[in-house]
């Protein structure tokens, strides 16, 4: 019973971890502008993130070390440093975006300007990292993140023509008035939002912290990956669907977080809206903690610093100093009054740029029999999916920045 409960919590955490501010914004934008024509990108992103999250956790199980540490050792410091710089930059941008997402959720609940919440939230985030064990909090935010199921309830309540939805998802088309470059840009944004590098790092660090150091941990780990991420993907498609059903017919293009939750109010009224705001708060706060700790984890793994563990903070001064620096940077950046939704869009696009430098090293290490051993080394399935993923993420990475400029971040 205890194991089943633990498995449930793991799946819930992976599910909650899949949805963050990037998904809330990108999915709502895509649904409002392209309907379900880009749902296949979500399916591809789920397969890709499942493949590499499983691989990074398997590396952690085989080596009893986090993936970034092993990658640096196997590929050398230069290649490792390039990956670290890229991943750190994107994840630090996401810290600011997620922190703003929490503040925007509070703004929706109170109508107090979100900028007033940001410094307070940064202090709270630091106190949590400093004083509280993260695992129970991760579970709390994961369970609260189940409130995102309100999107599924909302589309059911709207009673759409399911056959027509399925047809739209399986027959992608370019809507009238939209250009192919814009559609490609949003496809890449979606990929970057849903296959974010920090998810693999965090999964790997979590595997080490949870003591997944024997092959007996493989079934639990795979259950988390194989159920948590697809459920997250399903929810992402539900957000796209809700936007398509309510916002697209009215010609509304999503510019703010409040636009993402409007379809819930339309379908379910005040109670649904309150649950949606709670869901946004939970997933963005959970993601704030994950991205914040990921920036510190990957740097600590790379340079061999001591990690922050409750009760041993005095031995992890560099780890905590980095967390403070990232938080201060995020707060100062946010207080420039820059639009957090724009930052989110840029962050998810940059995330897609960094995917090859994050995933390719994992594929190389996962194939190294000396590191992985004969039983944990990549099998045919992992190698096939991993290699096919490269055929998607490399062109996406090359096209991301030119399309960002050419389409004015999808607004052109």
């Amino acid at each position, binding site marked *: 019973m205890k194991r089943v409960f633990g498995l449930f919590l793991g799946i819930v955490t992976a599910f909650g971890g899949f949805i963050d501010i990037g998904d809330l914004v990108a999915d709502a934008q895509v649904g409002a502008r392209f309907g379900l024509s880009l749902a296949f990108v979500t399916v591809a992103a789920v397969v890709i993130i499942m493949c590499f999250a499983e691989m990074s956790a398997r590396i952690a199980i085989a080596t009893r070390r986090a993936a970034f540490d092993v990658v640096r050792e196997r590929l050398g410091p230069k290649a490792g440093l390039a990956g670290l710089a890229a991943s750190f930059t994107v994840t630090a941008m996401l810290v600011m975006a997620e922190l703003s997402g929490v503040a925007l959720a509070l*703004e*929706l*609940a*109170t*109508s107090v300007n979100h900028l007033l919440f940001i410094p307070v939230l940064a202090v709270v985030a630091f106190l949590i990292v400093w004083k509280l064990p993260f695992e129970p909090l991760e579970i709390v935010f994961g369970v609260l993140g189940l409130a995102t199921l309100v999107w599924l309830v909302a589309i059911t309540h709207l009673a759409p023509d399911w056959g027509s939805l399925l047809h739209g998802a399986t027959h992608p088309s370019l809507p009238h*008035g939209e250009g192919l470059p814009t559609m490609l840009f949003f496809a890449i944004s979606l990929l970057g939002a849903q296959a974010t590098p920090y998810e693999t790092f965090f999964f790997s660090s979590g595997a080490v912290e949870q003591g997944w150091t024997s092959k007996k941990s493989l079934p639990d780990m795979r259950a988390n990956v194989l159920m948590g991420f697809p459920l997250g993907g399903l929810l992402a498609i539900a957000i796209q669907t809700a936007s398509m059903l*309510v*916002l697209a017919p*009215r*010609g*509304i*293009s999503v*510019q*703010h977080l*409040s*636009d993402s*939750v*409007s379809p819930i*109010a*339309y379908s*379910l*009224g*005040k109670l649904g*809206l*309150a649950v949606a*705001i709670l869901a946004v708060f939970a997933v963005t706060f959970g993601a704030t903690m994950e991205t914040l700790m990921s920036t510190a984890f990957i740097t600590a793994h790379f340079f061999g610093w001591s990690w922050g563990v409750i009760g041993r903070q005095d031995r992890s001064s560099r780890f905590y100093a980095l967390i403070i620096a990232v938080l201060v940077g995020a707060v100062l950046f946010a207080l420039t009054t820059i639009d957090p939704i724009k930052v989110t869009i840029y962050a998810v696009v940059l995330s897609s740029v960094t995917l090859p430098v994050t995933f390719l090293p994992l594929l190389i290490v996962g194939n190294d029999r000396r590191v992985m051993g004969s039983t944990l080394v990549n099998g045919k399935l992992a190698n096939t999916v991993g290699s096919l993923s490269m055929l998607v993420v490399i062109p996406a990475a090359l096209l991301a920045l030119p399309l960002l400029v050419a389409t004015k971040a999808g*607004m*052109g």
Partner: protein
Amino acid sequence: MVRRPSRASATGTGYARCQRVATVAARAADSTVNIAELDAELVRDHKTLTTELQVSLQQAYSDASSTLSGFDAVLPPHRSDVALQQRLDSALSAAVTLLLEMRVRAGQGRETELVPLIPQLRAMSVRLKLFEPLA
């Protein structure tokens, strides 16, 4: 030697650009007006929270204002563009005024007074859509 474009072609490019800017501005403003209309309908159906409504209308007003100022910053390159610029400027200004009124009413707790504005919002959306065929 660098060949300069002829005056006619330069003007043609400028005219097309002015049309494109007008279309993008009209489409952005229309989206904003439609959000406000959805908000008003949610008030009518008792489906929204006051706090969320205030934030949404504040953002709608702010977006429309920045669309207007962004459009006004582009000078029409040709005399024939001036009429287009004036027509859209008038429509955008009317949209900003309407959204300001909505924002004020919501801010003062007079949400129910948003409902009578729904026909005006629909008319405004129709007016802005007239610039769509320019795409």
